[in-house]
Structures are given as structure tokens and as C-alpha cells.
């Protein structure tokens, strides 16, 4: 809370470095998207880069590094339920009675060919 002015000035330098890293990673993620990966690979790469950027913001700009334990616990709980919210509906989608049929999408021209 009460850092000395020198510490704060050190932090400011760090903030600039993090900012530059975030900008570089933005360029990287755009550049990578021009490489024709298979879709799962592209998703993986994009999410890894976004995850890195996100954790940089959370750790340094939001000062999560060095934050109190109670905040960690609250966030850990949130992350767990976030994953439940994301994963279980997807599992439910893959686990259904019979063959899963999707009706042709009205604006998908290739729908007939797909079947």
C-alpha cells in the first residue's frame, strides 16, 4: 500500500514494459492468424496468446501478484464455476440420445451438400 517513491517509479517502468509486451503480442496474434493452421490448432494458438495477455493484465495492471489470499480464494471459486458453466453444456451437447441432428442453417448455402 505505502510503497516508497522509488518503488512506485520502478513499477512505472514495469507498466511500460508490460504495455509494450501486450502490443507485441497483439501483433503476433494477428500475424499468426494469417498462417493457415487447421481450425483446432488456430484456436489453441489464439487462446494461448490471449491467455498470456490476459494474465499479464491481471497480474501486473490489476496487481494480482501480491494480492491478498482472500481475493485469490474468491477468484479461484469463480474460475471453477466459470469452467463448469463452459464445459458442462458442451458435454451435454456431445452426450444425447440417438444421433445428434442439426437442421440445415437457413443462411448456409452448402447445407445440402453437407448432408
Amino acid at each position, binding site marked *: 500500500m505505502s510503497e516508497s517513491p522509488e518503488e512506485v517509479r520502478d513499477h512505472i517502468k514495469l507498466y511500460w514494459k508490460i*504495455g509494450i509486451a501486450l*502490443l507485441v503480442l497483439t*501483433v503476433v496474434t494477428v500475424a499468426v*492468424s494469417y498462417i493457415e493452421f487447421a481450425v483446432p490448432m488456430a484456436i489453441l494458438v489464439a487462446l494461448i496468446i490471449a491467455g498470456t495477455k490476459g494474465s499479464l493484465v491481471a497480474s501486473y495492471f490489476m496487481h494480482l501478484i501480491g494480492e491478498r489470499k482472500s481475493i485469490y480464494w474468491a477468484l479461484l471459486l469463480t474460475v471453477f464455476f466459470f469452467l463448469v458453466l*463452459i464445459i458442462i453444456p458442451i458435454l451435454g451437447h456431445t452426450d444425447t440420445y440417438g444421433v445428434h441432428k442439426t437442421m440445415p442453417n437457413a443462411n448456409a448455402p452448402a447445407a445440402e451438400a453437407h448432408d
Partner: protein
Amino acid sequence: MEIPYVVDERADTGLTNVKLGIWLFLASEVMLFGGLFSTYILLRINAIEWPFGADILSVPIGAFNTVVLILSSVTMVLCYAALKLDDFSGYKRYMGMTVGLAVLFLVVKSYEYYDKFSHGDVPAVSTYLAIYFTLTGLHALHIVGGVIVNGYFLGPGSKLWHANRQQFINRIEAAGLYWHFVDLVWIFLFPVLYLL
């Protein structure tokens, strides 16, 4: 009796009220966007065809807006650091830049929306556009909220600095946490909607 721990931290939790409050609020925001991301994934695996974002949206504009938001996050954390150095004019400068960049983001976003609407690409056209407009629209509303809060602390709210410095720093820290979170959401939205 005064409400305690508005200015100083409680010894056993090490937190001020506002800091715990803003983190809990952000936790609920995570779940809000979690519901929408879950929707995105389910719609996408459900779809027969899912368009490639870059074919519909403009990647340069999206990337530009990403840069704008990242810069605004940097200026936000710098204005917080300026306050800690007792540099009030520095705070005003950086906070002004943060608000300015946020407005720039909204202007660019409005142009993007206008461009889409004028080409008939409205939310009703496909589930991709539907989730695109919903996610970015809700995010833009969060930006508007941030502009209002930060604008308040730039203008009338900054009087508190002269009355109670520590309380003002606490408030700017909370506003900053919110603002970085909005930036963080965009960091995920950009690749998910534009690049995949």
C-alpha cells in the same frame, strides 16, 4: 458510528471495503461473460457452417481498437501510480488520456457497427453476427460505464483528493481494476470474434 475500513485496510483481511467489493463485482462479471462465451461455443459446435471472422469483420480495425484499449489500460495504471507519487497534475493528464482513448474506442466501434448495418449485416442474419453484436455490444456498454466513472473521477469526483487522499487513491484503484477487466475481456473477444 462511522463505517470502518473505507480509508484504511482492516488488519486481519488486509483489505479495504471498496477493494473487496470491486473484486467480487468483477467475479460476477466473469460469470456474465462466461455465460456468453458458453453460448458462443455451443452455437459454434452446433452450427453446420461457421464463418471465418476475418471474412466478415475488418481485422485492422479490430487490431487498432485492441491497441487503443491496451494503451488506455497503461495510462490508467500510470494515473494510479501518479497519485501514489502525489503528482495530481500527472494524474489528471493520464486520466484524461484514458477517457480520451476510451471515447476513441467507442467512435471506432460505432463506425464498425454503422458499416455492418449499412451493408445489411444485422444481428438477425446469422447466429455468428448475433453473438458478435451481443458480445461486443455488451462490452461497449461496459466501456460507456467506464467512461462515465472515469470521467466523474476526472471532473467533480477529483475534489476528494484534496479532502482525503488515501480514499481517493482507493477509489481510483477500484476504477482501475474495473477498467483493466474491460480491457481483459476485449483481449479475449478480439481473437475469438475476429481471428477464428
